[in-house]
């Protein structure tokens, strides 16, 4: 039999759980399209290999990326992507607000040419891991085909 103390505890737990679970996210598709503004290229694919190294005071990670879908500039079936951040010899470097390419997952990448090296560089917000669901691949909860359709309208 649950007494008054027990019911009070249950009520408190419910209040806390409810407050913590209530959420109203922003529109992820809008955010992806906004991040792609001015991008010359979007690709879908997987990392083949990665290497991090120090260059001029920054740790840069180079990812050989296998391309299975692309929108925008014509690219070969594998491209080299250069991104800021990584780990070398026990030192880590990271950019706040930015994701990193995770070699264990497929990604959608929004890419620009690095003005210094000419290599492909993800823009801010341009590294988007894919999730595999029962109904297909998604990007931040949005169906991949819907995302690619939207991007086709902004990437020329």
């Amino acid at each position: 039999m649950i007494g008054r103390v027990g019911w009070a505890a249950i009520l408190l737990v419910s209040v806390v759980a409810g407050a913590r679970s209530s959420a109203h996210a922003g529109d992820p598709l809008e955010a992806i399209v906004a991040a792609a503004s001015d991008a010359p290229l979007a690709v879908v694919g997987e990392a083949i290999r990665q290497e991090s190294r120090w260059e001029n005071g920054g740790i840069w990670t180079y990812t050989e990326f296998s391309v299975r879908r692309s929108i925008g500039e014509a690219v070969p079936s594998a491209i080299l992507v250069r991104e800021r951040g990584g780990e070398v010899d026990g030192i880590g470097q990271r950019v706040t607000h930015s994701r990193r390419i995770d070699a264990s997952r497929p990604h959608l990448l929004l890419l620009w040419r690095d003005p210094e090296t000419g290599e492909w560089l993800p823009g801010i917000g341009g590294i988007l891991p894919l999730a595999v669901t029962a109904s297909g691949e998604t990007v931040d909860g949005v169906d991949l085909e819907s995302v690619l359709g939207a991007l086709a309208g902004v990437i020329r």
Partner: protein
Amino acid sequence: MRTAPLAVVLLAIASAASAFQRETTDDPRCAEAPNVNCQHRGVPLEWRTFPVPFFVDADSSGLATGTVIEVAEDAFATWQNASRNGITFRFDGTTSVGGSNGDDGRNVIHFRPFVGGRDTFAQSILTYDVETGELLDVDVELNDNFSFAVLPSGQNDPTDPRVDLPSVLTHEAGHLLGLDHENRFGETVVMYFSDTTGNTSHRTLSGDDRSGVRTIYPTGGGDDGGDDDGDGGGCSAAGSAGGADRAAVVVLLLGLVATLRAARRR
């Protein structure tokens, strides 16, 4: 017998209200949104030697160097005062860097055009020891595709296309000292993930922000330099890297079980 389990439950609830997030060595980024924090799985990042020096490179800011220096000093002083000198900063001069260098031990604030990210006002480059979490170098980059200004105090006008430099630098200084975004308590928190042009509200720390810096850098004593804290520092108890949330839920459930069992034994 009945009060002890209830006390455990209440203590767990209080500690579950962790009001800040710490940067760690393993922070997989996510799609941030209101009420959505990213995970923090690694060793928390923090400075171990003080004062933390910083430099200013005002090139391409569109502002006078003296203005940028003054704004930067005020931003760091805001956090230092909130920490009651648990963390201290020191302005070490101006420089012309041409880019962030995480290998020189100089924490530089500078301006450059961002590639992509047309909604991103600024970012920080954190360099740290992977094993200990010690911060080694943090450079703050401001996106000079935007027009930065010192806006009139109290302004909140999103139609103004200018970005309030004091607000942005106060936010980035929070990253520099080891705080990540806290998205559960609204836009008044300086470490909230988003901001708008024309807004000056992120010049002022919330209780949640203060809790964060005081937890990471407990005071070593000394004058707090006019700390204007009037609200007791927010609602947190422990707040290490967000893990306190999960621990608090476990304690909460154990307390609830104990409470129910105590009630049944009456």
